[in-house]
């Protein structure tokens, strides 16, 4: 964990989340530090993806506060939320590319919206972003003409378009073959190392957790809370909790 300075960039304080009436997770408290790769783990249906939606400001928690890069996004006004959203990038599970636009236009969309760069410079910047995710030459393709892994990488190029301080990933390796998944992991580590981007990854892909994550939290559906946090390798070797052991050793309970 060298190079990680301990300034918290995401603070989650006493947050309870859920859908109308039922709660999924109660009283969550954790921090993500600037420049680290942080993973949120947990079994299916424990509320990982819902937590992600809260962290990126798509849903409001029932109680508690979430602070991102110094701005409290719970109960702030639209303007402040927009500011935060310019500093974060999100890679959705399916890539979430707009089917009617070319790859270049998909990546250029946030750049055109939030900067005043001339069109020529935008073309160069888009080329740089696609180069960073190894998709150079695919500018004029439509999303439907790309494979699943390429769509994901194009989604990543769009997520890093504005050089965000924090990147969120929802199940980055879902639907990718092992080689593509490893390539994506490599890309995540690479971007983190070269640009210092903080990464928050929601996943249950063990292999990728051990390769990329520096710190993890494990969520539990039954107790609706965080049952473990720390370094994934340490948790695998030292945890005594049956669920955590089962999770990291890939064993049935």
């Amino acid at each position, binding site marked *: 964990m060298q190079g990680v300075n301990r300034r918290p960039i995401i603070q989650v304080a006493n947050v309870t989340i859920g859908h109308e009436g039922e709660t999924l997770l109660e009283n969550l408290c954790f921090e993500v530090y600037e420049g680290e790769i942080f993973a949120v783990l947990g079994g299916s249906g424990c509320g990982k993806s819902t937590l992600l939606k809260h962290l990126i400001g798509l849903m409001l928690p029932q109680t508690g506060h979430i602070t991102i890069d110094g701005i409290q996004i719970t109960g702030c006004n639209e303007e402040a939320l927009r500011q935060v959203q310019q500093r974060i990038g999100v890679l959705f599970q399916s890539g979430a590319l707009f089917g*009617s636009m070319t790859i270049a236009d998909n990546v250029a969309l946030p750049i055109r919206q939030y900067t005043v760069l001339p069109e020529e*410079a935008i073309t*160069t*910047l888009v080329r740089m*972003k696609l180069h960073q995710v190894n998709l150079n*030459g695919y500018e004029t393709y439509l999303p*439907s003409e790309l494979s699943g892994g390429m769509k994901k990488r194009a989604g990543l190029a769009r997520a890093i378009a504005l*050089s965000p301080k924090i990147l969120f990933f929802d199940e980055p390796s879902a639907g990718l073959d092992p080689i593509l998944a490893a390539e994506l992991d490599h890309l995540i580590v690479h971007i983190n190392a070269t640009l210092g981007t903080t990464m928050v990854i929601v996943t249950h892909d063990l292999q990728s957790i051990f390769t990329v994550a520096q710190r993890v939290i494990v969520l539990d559906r039954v107790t609706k809370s965080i049952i473990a946090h720390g370094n994934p390798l340490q948790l695998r070797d030292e945890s005594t909790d049956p669920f955590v052991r089962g999770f990291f050793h890939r064993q049935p309970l």
Partner: protein
Amino acid sequence: MQTSIACGRCSAELVKTADHMMTVRLHGDIDASTAAALLHDLVPRISEPHCAHIAVDFSGILRQSDWSTLVGLELKKTAVRIGAVFTATGVSAYYSRFFQEIPITDPHPLPPQHADTALTRFGAAILKLGSDLVLMVRFVGSMCLAVGSLVRTPKNLRIDDTFTAMQRIGVDALPIVGLISFLLGLIMAFMAAVQLRMFGANIYVASLVSLAMTRELGPIMTAIIVAGRSGSAFAAEIGTMKISDEIDALTTMGFEPVEFLVMPKLIAAAIVVPLLVLYADLLGIFGGLVVGVGMLDLTAASYIAQTLKTIEVFDVFWGVGKAGIFAVLITWIGCFRGFQVRGGAAAVGAATTSAVVSGIFLIILADSVFAVILRYWG
């Protein structure tokens, strides 16, 4: 000669020496907004055509990022354009390869597009129409096969889905069909009254409204409403299933998608649309009655008597029968457009629009055919 430019937290220092060499030293922190401002100021200054060499020094940049590299690449582009040599110094290891690997000019220039002439567009439209027709006929074929297999094994019909479809197509449409037919009857009676009053022929308002509603307007209006409400829904539902691979899932599980998805809708529509038409006829006649009694001093009894005298059982059956055909056409084209969907969300939208437009077209076309048949047969 030395000039400097400052933009927020970053600045650039331009030094021009006698041997036509321009050195640009960048300092500070470059982000999205300063990159734009810096480019705006820098590019015109280094665009002088007699610059033979442009050297950009990045060593003063606090934190090299995509934004600082973007400024460098844009300066390189300018250098290439004016025919100058470009060098970059002090670039971090990660970004130095960008200067070699990112193409400055378009690597894949698009082939020059031939301007579409009216003739080529007409040709393309005809070809599309031709392939569309082939697909349509093929879809009719698979619908016939599905009907055949249902006749052999009726228990394969998805009864629950059929009832749900009946509710969606029929029961849920009652308010709008009722309202429109009532107003249609009202308006028709009102317009007719203005003319017929001059001849003292008020009572024939009843004849006109009842005949027009049962033979033509009841079936047509109901069918158009059903095409707008349900035809579009069929296309959107099946289209979304298509792009999310649900249709493929059905096929792999051994279901015939047409039998599974289209038959319940087809049977439901063929049953409830004629019933909707009867309901529309009644409300249209009731609308006429309101005008007759309210404005034309007719009694309700005489209005109803005149109505019954005018319309024959044949007229009602003719209208209802047409409605059955319209129902089949609407379901057929709605489902067909759904199965045609390829690609993403926009394709579903296009299919929905197309289902309504071609649905209405088919309804009018079929109605004209019926009018011709009636003219020679009736």
